[in-house]
């Protein structure tokens, strides 16, 4: 090795750029935020209007037949539960479709990876961004429910944080699916076979304790269920250590999905 390149190598060790570098994460976040300024209307519309329609349809449709569920007014019951749905819609779906579009059609990741940024940083920054959006969008149904008579409580101030943790996991779930998918058609299977059942059997629209025992056990594996329970806890009063378990389940879900998303995208982007 020549003196010059040896010197350069010494310099490189001193400057070896670390993993999950703050500047790299910032760079990817800036890209997301600047892009968001060009499409926030449609994104906000779909992420808020859809859960609101569910809320109104179920709340007033069913609500006219059943006025009380699990000790709550049905509108209050659905209004709190549907926060989890809003989080899912605003994190898993953009995670799946957004990532795939950026990979396949816009080739955004080729552009970013040419800069000093790694796949791990791309995935992490994009999930952080989607989680933050989900934290905001997740509160919309709650506000709508309040407008329709849900009593505001101080505990509800925790809802954005619950939505954030949950949204991070679901964003990473979406990114993982985009990483494993070879075409858009693959998403149909995930939406029909995974997301729809999870979203229906999360305790959002009906309490799970009416279900057969095996479904109740399975529901404990549903991250949406933990989100629903925590939001109800925030609105109506927490249930001590049980709610800590719910938090633990969401953190575990988020961490596992984060690592899976990084693995899936690294396989896709680097060959």
């Amino acid at each position, binding site marked *: 090795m020549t003196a010059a390149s040896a010197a*350069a190598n010494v310099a*490189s060790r001193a400057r070896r750029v670390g993993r999950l570098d703050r500047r790299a994460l910032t760079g990817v976040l800036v890209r997301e935020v600047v892009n968001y300024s060009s*499409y926030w209307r449609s994104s906000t519309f779909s992420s808020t209007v859809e859960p609101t329609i569910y809320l109104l349809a179920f709340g007033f449709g069913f609500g006219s037949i059943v006025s009380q569920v699990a000790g709550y007014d049905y509108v209050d019951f659905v209004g709190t539960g549907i926060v989890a749905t809003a989080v899912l819609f605003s994190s898993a779906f953009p995670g799946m479709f957004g990532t795939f579009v950026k990979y396949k059609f816009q080739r955004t990741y080729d552009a970013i990876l040419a800069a000093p940024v790694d796949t791990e940083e791309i995935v992490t920054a994009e999930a952080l961004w989607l989680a933050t959006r989900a934290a905001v969008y997740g509160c919309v149904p709650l506000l709508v429910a309040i407008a329709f008579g849900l009593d505001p409580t101080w505990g509800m101030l925790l809802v954005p944080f619950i939505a954030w943790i949950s949204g991070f996991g679901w964003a990473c779930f979406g990114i993982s699916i985009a990483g494993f998918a070879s075409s858009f058609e693959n998403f149909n299977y995930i939406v029909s076979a995974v997301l729809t059942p999870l979203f229906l059997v999360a305790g959002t629209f009906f309490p799970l304790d009416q279900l057969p025992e095996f479904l109740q056990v399975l529901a404990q594996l549903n991250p949406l269920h933990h989100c629903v329970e925590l939001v109800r806890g925030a609105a109506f009063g927490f249930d001590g250590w049980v709610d800590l378990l719910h938090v633990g389940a969401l953190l575990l879900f988020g961490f596992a999905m984060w690592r899976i998303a990084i693995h899936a995208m690294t396989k896709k982007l680097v*060959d």
Partner: protein
Amino acid sequence: MSTELAIRLRGVVKRYGAITAVDGLDLDVPLGTCVGLLGPNGAGKSTTMRLLTAQSIADEGELEVLGFRLPDESKAARAECGVVPQLDNLDTTLTVEQNLLVFTHLYRIPRAERREAIERALRMANLVDRRDTRADKLSGGMRRRLLIARALVHRPRLVLMDEPTVGLDPQVRQELWALIDSLRSEGTTILMSTHYIEEAQRLADTVLIMSHGKAVAAGPPSDLVLQHAGREALEVYGPPSRLAEVEAEAGAAGLRTRRTGTSVSILGAEAGNGYAVEGERRPANLEDVFVLLTGEEIA
């Protein structure tokens, strides 16, 4: 070896399943020079470019970029490189300026210098009065210029360009050549892949001819031409039967020929070897070299 290599590849191999895209490639790019990777589609040029940004990981061989060993230190190398991709990957709904702004962050330009970096890139790419235009409203040539400006926003020491003018009108292409040439004259090191002979001949100090993942020749374009194709070529036109005849006769006289559609080029025509035939004399060029060395037509 030279102490000032921007890129140094030794015995680099990259396989995709049964296909060997890069097959034992050696490549030197001295600092301050423009090196052209010339080859037909599928020669391994784009794979080589991906290897240099660690988006592909080599199966064998050594890679050094600006003194950093790849892939381990690739991130440090990428901080000082600019990359102009073959396929447009601009953020199409953002303005010209917003596209540049995003990359001042990705390339970690300190806050106080961002403004000036964007202005400099806009001036260099001649896009100052387009700063507020959305990328999807730009012409093909302007989008290319923006891609180049984006790669230069952090004043890289080394610029990698993958087919920088592919798919553009000849006129727009010349405009880009002027831009690349001005970069070169400022001392920026450039590695450029291309399958346009003229592009390599005009811009590159050194050309490396690639075929099937290997380097088949390397050197300054004029040296390569003189060494392999001589000074002049004689272009003989005629019906196919006549062309076949000329090929046979020239071959018998020990001259090399190549078919170019409607004509036969007799290479090293200045030597003559006692064979005379009516035709148009023209200077030998890099294309002659390329076809001789690889047996493949280009472009």
